[in-house]
């Protein structure tokens, strides 16, 4: 099924004509309203009028996460606050979040794109959607929720956590579509098994999973354990939230990007040069319909490649391959963005702690786990076990409070953490995704 036949199957020439028109409108808009973008144009010695083709897009400088942070909280908004009806935020490296805003039209557009995405993932009117993405500042929960309502499906706003209750709801309400992070989906399977609930007795048909990296192997495991067809969804709050791109359940080979709203580019992360389709590099997005928070050539740090080949589902939209990694050190743990430097600033708030730490990420059981190893130096050490245990607890609580992610803190002997060329190895990611 295709939600928006006109736009999702449009011939590419017609699509590109729409993209150019929308791009030009967006550029005029940000040039006039956002000082940051105005300066970017000046820096490049151009004005929006110089962008006469889609190819000219590459003349505009990139926007980075740091730029968004420098304009915290509302400096990048392109409309007066009177017109902003929603604010979301995602975590940033220094504990300072990236803030994004939406006008009423943005919210409606987002809902429509999520309705498209849910449809591509197998949902339709009449389905019951069990939405286990977290509700709140994170865009996953509410983005999916509005899309589900737009589609006309019944949505259960169950959010994350309270897993046993979720299993009971699955049994009693009979949802047919599951939306969650892939690791939480596997955790649900595990808890269901413990409770003696068999997924083959449930009514699920499709699952739409995203907000963290996963793999084909994990897809097979989810499909087998949950007895569903699993598709990948992509999005990031800076660009919109979930629903920027989605796999169709027919092909499950790459995620269709809704190009009538977002122009993707793949660049060489070192030189900034635009790479031809098929080559792997950093994904860059320009939004061409957003009002409150347009982004121009925003560097996502996600690594992928693009594919224009026609798809068996009938969509003419370009596909991005599964994200294979990041160009920075950001970790995504159960949908939460974590930078090692954030953990470091939490640790440094505690006087006795020395900056010798290491993050170990594992997928133990079904959930991603974060263990923070902290070396015990003389200032931190105590002959009393309870003092050391309290310290572990305090660090763990602070991480939970500041970053929103649960971490196990483990004290280790000095010099245990490997130092390579004088620089400590900060992250060990043991996840096999």
């Amino acid at each position, binding site marked *: 099924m295709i939600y928006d036949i006109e736009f999702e199957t449009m011939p590419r020439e017609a699509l590109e004509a729409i993209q150019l028109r929308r791009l030009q409108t967006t550029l005029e808009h940000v040039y006039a309203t956002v000082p940051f973008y105005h300066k970017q144009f000046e820096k490049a010695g151009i004005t929006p009028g110089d962008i006469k083709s889609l190819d000219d897009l590459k003349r505009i400088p990139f926007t980075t996460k740091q730029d968004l942070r420098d304009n915290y909280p509302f400096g990048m908004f392109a409309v007066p606050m009177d017109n902003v009806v929603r604010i979301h935020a995602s975590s940033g490296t220094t504990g300072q979040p990236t803030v994004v805003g939406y006008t009423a039209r943005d919210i409606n557009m987002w809902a429509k794109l999520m309705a498209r995405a849910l449809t591509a993932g197998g949902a339709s009117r009449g389905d019951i959607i069990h939405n286990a993405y977290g509700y709140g500042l994170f865009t996953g929960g509410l983005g999916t929720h509005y899309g589900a309502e737009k589609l006309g499906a019944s949505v259960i706003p169950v959010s994350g956590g309270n897993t046993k209750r979720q299993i009971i709801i699955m049994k009693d309400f009979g949802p047919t579509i599951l939306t969650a992070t892939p690791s939480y989906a596997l955790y649900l399977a595990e808890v269901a098994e413990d409770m003696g609930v068999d997924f083959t007795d449930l009514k699920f048909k499709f699952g739409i999973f995203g907000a963290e990296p996963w793999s084909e192997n994990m897809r097979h495991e989810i499909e087998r354990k949950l007895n569903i067809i699993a598709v990948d969804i992509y999005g990031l709050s800076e660009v919109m939230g979930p629903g920027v791109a989605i796999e169709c359940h027919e092909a499950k080979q790459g995620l269709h990007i809704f190009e009538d709203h977002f122009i993707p580019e793949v660049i060489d992360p070192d030189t900034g040069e635009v790479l031809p389709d098929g080559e792997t590099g950093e994904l860059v997005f320009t939004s061409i319909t957003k009002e409150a928070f347009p982004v121009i050539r925003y560097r996502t740090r996600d690594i992928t490649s693009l594919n224009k080949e026609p798809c068996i589902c009938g969509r003419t939209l370009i596909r991005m391959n599964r994200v294979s990694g990041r160009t920075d050190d950001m970790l995504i743990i159960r949908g939460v963005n974590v930078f090692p430097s954030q953990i470091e600033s939490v640790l440094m708030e505690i006087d006795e702690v020395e900056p010798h730490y290491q993050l170990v990420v594992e997928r133990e059981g079904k959930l991603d786990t974060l263990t923070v190893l902290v070396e*015990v*130096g*003389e200032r931190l*050490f*105590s*002959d*009393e*076990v309870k003092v*050391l*245990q309290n310290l572990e607890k305090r660090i763990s609580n602070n991480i939970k409070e500041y970053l929103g992610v649960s971490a196990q803190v*483990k*004290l*280790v*002997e*000095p*010099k*245990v953490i490997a130092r390579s060329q004088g620089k400590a190895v900060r992250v060990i990611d043991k996840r096999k995704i």
Partner: protein
Amino acid sequence: MHVEQISIFLENKAGRLEEVTSILSEAGVNIRALSLADTSDFGVLRLIVDDNGKAEDVLKSKGFTVGKTEVVAVEVQDKPGGLSKILSLLHKSDINVEYMYAFVRQSGNNAVMIFRFDHIDAAIKLLKNGGITVIDGSKVYAM
């Protein structure tokens, strides 16, 4: 009246305790008393040795985190109620025992226990006034 104890941070993995004892043995340091408190991830080894300075130096040079704490060595009558008498004395005066462990050697016919208090000097005064023998550090190291 204080006794100096050294403590060492150990991860819970095979061979760590043996490593400490062999470092001390190579340095000719004799262990007088020992206690190990542990959790699932780590342990704290507490030692009374005959040469604190030397023990601290060799362990630190091998990369261990070493701490020093003042504790109290107390004679305990080696008969039923011996320890109870001391504990009830402390309890009545609201002095907390953080931990305690037994000394290997005896002092005459009495056993010797090592106590770690939250208020060490108040504890010593109380014990002495209560007729309990507190053994001086210099004697303890040589026992």
